[in-house]
């Protein structure tokens, strides 16, 4: 695992640290079973980035199949195994596995761990002036639960019948009769849920208990607020999925009928179970998690973008308070919109009316935050650094993702668009050029914090521009294909359907863009590893930022303990362009006029 090859974050800095009784721990305690939030953050980061690439590669296979169905996958086709892809030609059963696992891996193993586990772990304690997370041991346990969950998910590809193949949503009754991989999926999910439970408790306690002196809630950087709300969502939304997973596990292993209605017919035979269950129950429990989960994906991204934008426009965020309140409203409302994923299930017009109303209401705080970020650009002397490019690209991309969601939130239009490529286009705009771009912004932005070196700007731009063009080339045509009514789950991309014929040519275009996107990541991967050793050395606060992680702590950070002396906070997080300030900005920990 790449985590283990990571060079130590400057171990020698422990020397001279106030904590003299600190005994040098053996290698495995420091870098493998570490309890330091920074090391755990990096473990999360590298594991999550591995899964991000892995999930992306699953999608590349799918894109090949969609563009050229029935043609052998070039180069690696022979490695996929005779049961999955005889002669390199992907079988429908294997395609279903790829689809289900792409979704699962991207959501639960890549983006959430990267956004929360990695960025949250590394940055939050530094930004609030804490020596570590409140529960370092739980933090370690949280990472290893995640790791085990990931291993189980990967191993499930080798289970008889392959990995889970009922979609990332695992709808019953299909999932209750699917091959063994589905049971592995459920087991993996239990570990991932445990991991996020431990993590979210830790974040909330840390933010409530360990803030530096003077750091009141309305002086917290927006990123910390976003992590706090995210943690509450994880804490309260995941347990119902755990309940659902337990029920489905019982259905599969102990042959119960929680999700199986009476008289279920499989391949012409009535299934021998007690019956009386409700497939709809799973959907309710699943989406009760999975809708807040959407906000788990997007809120930390908004937090990162807010930090980067304030720093690079050199002015305070516009409407910081409204952004914070919107965030909290967003958190609450995200618990009452879940059934807009289920308009087509026949749950009734009254319930649909309720959920489409709440869905329309939740767009208000989202728009408030996005507008505030846009307005923050106004009149700023913008520095077009690499992190800023990604943050700027995030704004319209997230905007497109959000606005295309409105027709899906209204049940009349959703009837046409449900389960088409339009949906895929919509949520990928939110998550891929949205959240993932924000993650890139965060990596370029905080890299000097972690290593004391900057990533190459040239390679950064070589990463940004092609990625930006190709990613739109993948997802924009999906709206066209979706509006034509092509289903999202077709193995052949719609070749057999007459209504799909006019839009079929887009399949190859989208696939070529996907391959282009894969190639565009090479400069990033190279840049990331090259800059650890060879990047340009910079001082502690290269971006001239105001928040504590830059202003009060050396970069790269000292070992356990973070701060050489306990920081005291005198003002809000974004005092850029402060009148009379020596360098044009006032860091949070600099004594003087209270802001």
């Amino acid at each position, binding site marked *: 695992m790449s985590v283990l090859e990571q060079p130590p974050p400057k171990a020698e800095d422990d020397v001279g640290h106030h904590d003299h009784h600190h005994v040098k721990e053996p290698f495995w305690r420091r870098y493998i079973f570490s309890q330091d939030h920074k090391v755990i953050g990096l473990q999360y980061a590298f594991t999550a980035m591995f899964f991000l690439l892995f999930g992306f590669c699953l999608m590349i296979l799918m894109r090949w199949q969609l563009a050229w169905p029935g043609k052998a996958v070039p180069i690696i086709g022979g490695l996929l195994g005779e049961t999955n892809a005889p002669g390199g030609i992907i079988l429908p059963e294997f395609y279903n596995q790829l689809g289900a696992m792409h979704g699962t891996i991207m959501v639960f193993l890549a983006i959430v761990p990267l956004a929360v586990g990695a960025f949250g772990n590394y940055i939050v304690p530094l930004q609030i002036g804490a020596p570590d997370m409140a529960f370092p041991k739980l933090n370690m346990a949280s990472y290893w639960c995640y790791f085990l969950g990931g291993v189980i998910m990967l191993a499930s590809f080798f289970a008889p019948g392959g990995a889970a193949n009922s979609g990332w949503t695992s709808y019953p009754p299909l999932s209750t009769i699917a091959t063994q991989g589905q049971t592995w999926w459920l087991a993996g999910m239990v570990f991932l849920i445990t991991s996020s439970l431990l993590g979210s*408790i830790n974040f909330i306690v840390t933010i409530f208990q*360990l803030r530096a002196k003077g750091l009141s809630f309305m002086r917290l950087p927006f990123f910390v607020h976003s992590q706090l709300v995210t943690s509450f969502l994880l804490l309260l939304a995941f*347990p119902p999925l755990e309940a659902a997973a337990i029920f489905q596990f019982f259905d599969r292993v*102990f042959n*119960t009928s929680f999700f199986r209605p009476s008289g279920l017919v499989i391949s012409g035979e009535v299934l021998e179970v007690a019956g009386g269950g409700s497939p709809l129950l799973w959907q309710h429990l699943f989406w009760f998690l999975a809708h807040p989960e959407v906000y788990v994906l997007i809120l930390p991204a908004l937090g990162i973008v807010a930090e980067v934008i304030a720093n690079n426009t050199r002015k305070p965020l516009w409407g910081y308070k409204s952004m914070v309140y919107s965030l909290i409203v967003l958190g609450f409302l995200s618990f009452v919109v879940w059934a807009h994923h289920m308009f087509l299930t026949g749950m009734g017009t009254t319930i649909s009316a309720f959920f489409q109303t709440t869905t329309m209401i939740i767009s208000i705080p989202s728009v408030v935050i996005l507008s505030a970020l846009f307005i923050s650009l106004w009149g700023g002397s913008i520095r077009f650094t690499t992190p800023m490019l990604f943050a700027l690209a995030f704004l319209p991309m997230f905007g497109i993702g959000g606005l295309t969601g409105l027709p899906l939130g209204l049940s009349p239009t959703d009837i046409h668009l449900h389960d088409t490529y339009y949906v895929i286009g919509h949520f990928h705009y939110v998550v891929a050029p949205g959240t993932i771009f924000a993650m890139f912004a965060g990596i370029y932005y905080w890299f000097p914090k972690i290593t004391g070196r900057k990533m190459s700007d040239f390679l950064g731009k070589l990463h940004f521009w092609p990625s930006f063009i190709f990613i739109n080339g993948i997802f924009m045509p999906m709206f066209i294909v979706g509006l034509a009514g092509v289903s999202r789950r077709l193995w052949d991309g719609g070749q057999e359907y007459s209504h799909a014929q006019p839009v079929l040519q887009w399949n190859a275009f989208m696939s070529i863009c996907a391959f282009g996107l894969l190639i565009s990541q090479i400069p990033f991967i190279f840049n990331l590893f090259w800059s650890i050793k060879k990047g340009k050395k910079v001082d502690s606060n290269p971006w001239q930022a105001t928040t504590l992680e830059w202003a009060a702590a050396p970069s790269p950070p000292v070992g356990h303990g973070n701060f050489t002396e306990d920081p005291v906070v005198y003002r809000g997080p974004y005092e850029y362009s402060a009148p009379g300030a020596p360098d044009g900005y006032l860091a949070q920990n600099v004594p003087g006029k209270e802001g």
Partner: protein
Amino acid sequence: MEIPYTVEPQPETGLYNAKLGIWLFLASEVMLFGALFSSYILLRTGDPGFMTIPHDVAEALGLHGEAHRWSDELSVPLAFVNTLVLIFSSITIVMSWASLRLKEFGKFRFWLGLTILCALGFMGIKAIEYSTKFAHHLYPETSNFLGIYFTLTGLHGLHVVGGLIVLVYLWGPGSKMWKTAPQRFINRVETVGLYWHFVDLVWIFLFPTIYLL
């Protein structure tokens, strides 16, 4: 490096870290059992035959005549005894915590020991209940009512076992901390006590909704 507020309360929140942590954990537990109970309600109201034992199964169980309900197969007296046992254990765990605060370690051990015995007793009675069901060929797959019964009481039992492990640890090897860091040890007992009350509370909801209604 020392993490602040592991022992003394944080002035703003008035809680030490672990106490806030356990409350948050219990909030997530409320969501877990909330989902389980909601599912029970939805399955029960969604299926008119949920409570009724099908005729052939009733015959096999030796039940004749009128329609029989699944809940009649459960033993209310045993569950009632278990309810008393758990409520009593809630009292004893508070007594053990109070004794510690009065610096009476011997009494603490006595009351905590009693709590452990209650937990063991509860699990023993649970085992008798389960084995009677299995002896009558009543399994989770037999009907959704039994499925709910086994899943909900099983998960609750798992929580009891989890608590039991921590209680035994605090009674035995963990109690050494009383000598080295007494306040921290008191906090630990308080924290596990909060959890224990929650486990009791779940049972207090389980008993009427599954056995009586």
